[in-house]
């Protein structure tokens, strides 16, 4: 078959924002608050999570400022403890878990599979309200004086030894958990039941696959966190003693139950990011994703194996040596599908025709940073190594590499990539490229030194530290400042572009997905007539063919 690149469509220059679209379909704040449109709910989510990202980021800034010097000088000990706890809770539960699924996923999945909405639009809205309700609890916990359990709520510390707002925060996380359960449930049903004619499983965009896998984890994992938090709250309020060693309870039981959710949760966080990268790599290489089914199945494999490795967070916590062995082995197995993905993305570029717009830059940053983050995860999965590295800054660096370097970069890649679809306007290209590069540099400067600190033995959650660790900490703080700018810029220029951005047209990237074949911003109903899928995903030849036809018919 002759290969195909697509000449830019004429519609980009003549493009206008369509008169009717989901944004102006109805007016007034109430029409947003009571909407059942998945696209509007996605926007509601986008606004809320951005807000909480900035809150969490501000906490991070304060943490880094405090760690500039070895002495405990900026804030008091308990304030510092509250800072990292709330940083972790806000970033994980209010930002990263809902980030891609609830915004981009919510917006795009129905369109990508060719339907008008998610299966349960009202439940979708409900899940946003639950999110906000939980967020209010968490904000209350913060405003009333904070919590200082660490995001892991470790018992018996959280149940018996702290006087902060553990109950409020626990309930907040509990409620937010249900928001994520309902999002996942909605996605699964939608993907199973509402695909357009011809949209077979193996024609689904990989973004859908990865969100599907993440949804399975949300539905099956989150309830365990919920019941665990209920027990923690009960233990605090009426002293029931399920996790209290003095009453015969077992604090390790808490660890088991907590990590049964929280390990799968890290895959809830990263899998949707994987999906974005697949889309972006393909589009900017103008090539179908290399090894489509391998990438699709590896998402499912990660979701499945993700349930079998949780105790790798407890290697030195007193699990039996034998089960440590088993969990370590399984951890190694679960790392393999990620490797498969990374290589497939690289090979997607091979023989492509690559351009380097901002989403692609973020995606490339993702690949590098996720590889580092993932491989350092293998350090931690390796039993003997974990003894030295656990509870140190090595872990902090590991998870920021996967969560910030990985997922946050993927989120930004996706946000830029689909911004034209969300808003109908382009983001400003050169400044956004600058911010991608800035955050890449800032990121490495922040977290690379933390690997070294970790191997040196600097414990995490330390308010003060021995002076010989200072140089690396100063570097890290310097990096965080750069990183902060790198992340602040998109917030500003994306807002700017809402009004002043170039009008994007339907398909500015010449991408193949169904979402690019409809107007941007889309209609409330997404499609004028229901689509029928007659080609594979990422079929650039089909797209070229289609554009040719269009040019002739229009011209």
């Amino acid at each position: 078959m002759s290969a195909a690149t697509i000449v830019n469509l004429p519609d980009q220059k003549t493009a206008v924002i369509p008169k009717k679209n989901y944004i102006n379909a109805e007016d007034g704040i109430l029409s947003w608050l009571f909407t059942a449109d998945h696209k509007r709910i996605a926007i509601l989510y986008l606004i809320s999570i951005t807000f909480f990202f900035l809150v969490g980021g501000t906490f991070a800034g304060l943490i880094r400022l405090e760690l500039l010097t070895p002495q405990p000088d900026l804030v008091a000990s308990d304030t510092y403890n509250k800072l990292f706890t709330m940083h972790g809770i806000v970033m994980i539960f209010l930002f990263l878990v809902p980030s891609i699924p609830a915004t981009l996923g919510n917006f795009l999945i129905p369109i990508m599979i060719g339907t008008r909405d998610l299966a349960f639009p009202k439940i979708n809205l409900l899940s946003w309200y639950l999110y906000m309700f939980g967020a209010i609890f968490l904000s209350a916990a913060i405003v009333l004086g904070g919590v200082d359990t660490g995001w892991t709520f470790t018992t018996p510390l959280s149940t018996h030894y702290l006087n902060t707002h553990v109950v409020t925060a626990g309930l907040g996380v509990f409620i937010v958990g249900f928001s994520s359960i309902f999002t996942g449930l909605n996605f699964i049903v939608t993907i199973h039941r509402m695909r357009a004619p011809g949209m077979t499983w193996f024609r689904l965009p990989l973004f859908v696959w990865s969100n599907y896998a993440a949804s399975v984890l949300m539905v099956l994992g989150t309830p365990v966190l919920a019941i665990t938090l209920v027990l923690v709250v009960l233990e605090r309020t009426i002293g029931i003693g399920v996790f209290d060693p003095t009453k015969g309870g077992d604090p390790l039981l808490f660890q088991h139950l907590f990590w049964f959710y929280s390990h799968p949760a890290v895959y809830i966080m990263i899998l949707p990011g994987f999906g974005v990268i697949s889309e972006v790599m393909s589009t900017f290489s103008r090539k179908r994703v290399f090894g489509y089914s391998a990438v699709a199945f590896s998402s499912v494999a990660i979701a499945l194996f993700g349930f079998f490795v949780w105790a790798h967070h407890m290697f030195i916590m007193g699990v039996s040596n034998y089960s440590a062995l088993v969990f370590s082995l399984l951890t190694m197995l679960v790392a393999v599908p990620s490797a498969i993905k990374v290589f497939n993305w690289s090979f997607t570029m091979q023989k492509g025709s690559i351009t380097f717009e901002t989403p692609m830059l973020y995606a490339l940053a993702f690949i590098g940073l996720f590889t580092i983050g993932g491989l350092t995860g293998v350090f931690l999965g390796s039993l003997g190594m974990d003894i030295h590295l656990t509870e140190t800054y090595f872990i902090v660096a590991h998870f920021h590499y996967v969560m910030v370097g990985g997922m946050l970069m993927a989120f930004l890649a996706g946000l830029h990539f689909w911004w034209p679809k969300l808003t109908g306007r382009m983001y400003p290209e050169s400044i956004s490229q600058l911010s991608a590069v800035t955050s890449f540099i800032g990121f490495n400067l922040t977290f690379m030194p933390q690997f070294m600190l970790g191997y040196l033995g600097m414990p995490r959650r330390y308010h003060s530290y021995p002076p010989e660790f200072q140089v690396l900490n100063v570097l890290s703080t310097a990096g965080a400042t750069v990183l902060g700018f790198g992340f602040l810029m998109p917030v500003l220029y994306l807002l700017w572009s809402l009004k002043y951005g170039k009008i994007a047209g339907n398909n500015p990237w010449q991408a193949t997905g169904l979402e690019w074949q409809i107007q941007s911003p889309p209609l409330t109903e997404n499609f004028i007539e229901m689509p029928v899928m007659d080609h594979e995903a990422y079929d650039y030849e089909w797209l070229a063919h289609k554009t040719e036809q269009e040019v002739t018919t229009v011209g």
Partner: protein
Amino acid sequence: MSSQYHDPANVTNPEHSEHHIIGPGTYILVYVSLLILTGLTVAAAFVDLGILNPVLAVGIACVKGTVVILFFMHVFYQSKLIKLTVTAGFFTFLVLITMTLSDYMSRAWGLW
């Protein structure tokens, strides 16, 4: 163009199955067997079977649960997808139980 690609099997998903109405007859049968099984567990509890006591109790409960799921909850007549979903739920539940238990069992049982 459209009819050429039209695939009605996909509108109503290939995973679907006919809606099956179960009549009261089946329900009565199930109901009675559930009551009998309940009687059986209670009776079994008063017989000393040693280690088998809890095993039997849980075994009977499993049977009862399965019957409810299959008939009261119609899974017997449902599509593969639903059957798979139910299985997946119990599978994950078992993962939680067995993997956690295996940790406790490979330590000194009862003595931490």
